């Protein structure tokens, strides 16, 4: 069955790329050229690779967040809001609290996680206490988070003058790899002779990617090897049976949402501490949470699967951003491709039909030989 699922995902990705090619050719672009640009845009230079990784990092985390909740039977559409709250709180801690390096980012990250956990935990509580569908509440909470974040950024003392954004976090809270060294004399001198490393370190490379991978492994371990994971999966697969077996369903729903929220909050914190360094005023959703849903679906809701899925997703997005400047093809073809991938993943029945037709034909041939 697992193999089947993997096949479905691969075929869906293939269909996505085919439809993307069709959309491109209808508009008069050469799809092979376009995909070539994208591949070059991801692997062409060391700094492209690091950008792709940087882009993928928050998606791994929001992807794992959604996947984890999925395994408990919860649809965390609220990853977006949890991300926003996580980044807001991490910025607040990163700017207002003065702490030594190493400790500062840890505190800021934990604060971001906690904020995300509470934000999502509220939706979990509403589900377990009042039976309100988490899809609805988390959609509401996304918007509340967005306006709340804007409200905070507009607050005097936090807002950076003449900018629609907060103050930048203190340098001590940064999680960039060799951030200071890069710009020091020694660093510059060293990098001068090392093209690859210079290029690779040029973008805001940070520890977020390592954190994300460790977290994905941790979540896999929790689900597979712990009693907590057993409970959560039992609740997700059949909450009536779990309840009958003595598992506290309501508590597990809240726990699951809180863990999911912590992961999305972590994504937000990592993005602030490693890349953006600030919270900007948001006119609309940035989409980290929604992209996380797609990542989780592509990953078949497996935490480990979220790593390659997010890299694919980040690669498509970053590589896709090269389309406009080079061949003039709109970047949005990427969203269409991603949409089509998700669309086919939503229909395993269709793909099963397609593959079974193939099998049947093969079967007929065998019959003919006889």
């Amino acid at each position, binding site marked *: 069955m697992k193999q089947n699922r993997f096949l479905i995902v691969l075929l869906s990705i293939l269909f996505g790329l085919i439809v993307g090619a069709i959309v491109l050719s209808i508009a008069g672009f050469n799809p092979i050229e376009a995909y070539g640009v994208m591949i070059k845009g991801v692997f062409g230079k060391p700094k492209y690779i690091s950008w792709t990784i940087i882009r993928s990092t928050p998606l791994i985390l929001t992807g794992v967040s959604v996947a984890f909740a999925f395994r408990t039977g919860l649809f965390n559409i609220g990853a977006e809001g949890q991300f926003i709250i996580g980044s807001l709180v991490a910025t607040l801690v990163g700017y207002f609290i003065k702490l030594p390096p190493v400790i500062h980012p840890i505190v800021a990250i934990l604060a971001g996680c906690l904020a995300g956990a509470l934000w999502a935990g509220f939706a979990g509580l509403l589900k377990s206490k*009042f039976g309100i569908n988490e899809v*609805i509440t988390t959609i509401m909470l996304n918007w509340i988070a967005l306006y709340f974040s804007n409200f905070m950024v507009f607050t005097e003392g936090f807002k950076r003058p003449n900018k629609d954004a907060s103050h930048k976090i203190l340098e001590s809270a940064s999680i960039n790899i060799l951030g200071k060294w890069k710009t020091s004399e020694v660093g510059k001198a060293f990098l001068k002779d090392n093209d690859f490393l210079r290029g690779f370190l040029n973008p805001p490379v940070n520890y977020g990617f390592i954190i994300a991978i460790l977290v994905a492994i941790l979540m896999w371990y929790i689900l597979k090897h712990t009693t907590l994971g057993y409970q959560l999966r039992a609740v997700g697969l059949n909450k009536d049976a779990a309840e009958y077996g003595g598992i506290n369903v309501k508590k597990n729903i809240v726990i699951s949402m809180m863990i999911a929220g912590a992961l999305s909050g972590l994504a937000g914190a990592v993005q602030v501490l490693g890349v953006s360094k600030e919270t900007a005023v948001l006119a609309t959703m940035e989409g980290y949470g929604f992209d996380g849903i797609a990542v989780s679906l592509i990953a078949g809701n497996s935490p480990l699967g979220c790593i390659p899925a997010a890299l694919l997703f980040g690669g498509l997005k970053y590589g896709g951003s090269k389309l406009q400047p080079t061949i003039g093809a709109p970047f949005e073809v990427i969203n269409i491709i991603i949409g089509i991938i998700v669309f086919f993943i939503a229909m395993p029945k269709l793909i099963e039909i397609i593959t079974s037709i193939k099998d049947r034909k093969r079967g007929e041939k065998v019959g003919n030989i006889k």
Partner: protein
Amino acid sequence: MEILNDIGIIIGISLMYAAPLMFTSLGGVISENAGVVNIGLEGMMTMGAFAGAAAAYFSGNPWIGFIVAGLAGGALALLHAVACVTFTADHVVSGIAMNFIGPGLALYLCKIFFDGAAMTLPLDLNHKIPRPLNNILPPDSFLNSVLNQYATVYIAFILVFLVWFLLYKTKLGLRIRSVGEHPRAAETLGVNVYKMKYLAVILSGVFAGFGGAALSTAVVSNYRASLVSGQGFIALAAMIFGNWKPQGAMWGCLLFGAAQGLVVYLGGTSLKVSSQILAMIPYVITIIVLMVFVGEASGPAANGLPYEKNQG
């Protein structure tokens, strides 16, 4: 009299903002009463917003734009129907796909048709949806502020009645609702479950498309990437707020419209109320309403469940 006039302005703006939501929300009502969850309304609305603005721009006729918007929304909804009805997809997952495809395709086409610009060219004022009562009521009067609306506002209210009538009075409505409540029962009586579901989902896309056009050809005069941003979800919330009933959804939309109306109105005054806090209110109210009326807000019995013919 000034207060009355101000109230009139607030009501007027609220109605204007509520109309696009009402179209879309009614779409949700129809689809979910037939048992198909439509979280893709956002994408369908965005398609409609672009198609409506573009068609109105090229044809110079807002009504052509309005119709094309419905067709565009309906076309996207057809995809959703194929996935959910024929291939028993998870409705929410397919809806998520719609929300990638719809906005992606809208902006993609926009850039193709408008020389790489991320917005359509603005419509002339006389190419927008007309205001039937313009220059009829005394200017600056309460009535004028309230009633001098784009035709789409009136159509939205008429549509609330029509959808209610369709669902609760007609044969088609009885069948649509039966499919959302107990598809197998409906099938055993010879109701074509798939046909009903397809019809309802496509209609929901058409309505969402109308909603998008009501934004891009009336509230404002062009489509841009950030135009819809989330209003499809708000319409969905309004539908749930209204307990899956057309008239209830209308009240939900009016609530969200009023909040937006207040934001716009207060933005023009010197009052020191944070527009961000104000914008939050309808979402908070929706959560509170759900907490208070819990249990009743459950929707059709078979809503969101894939239905397969021929299965034991």
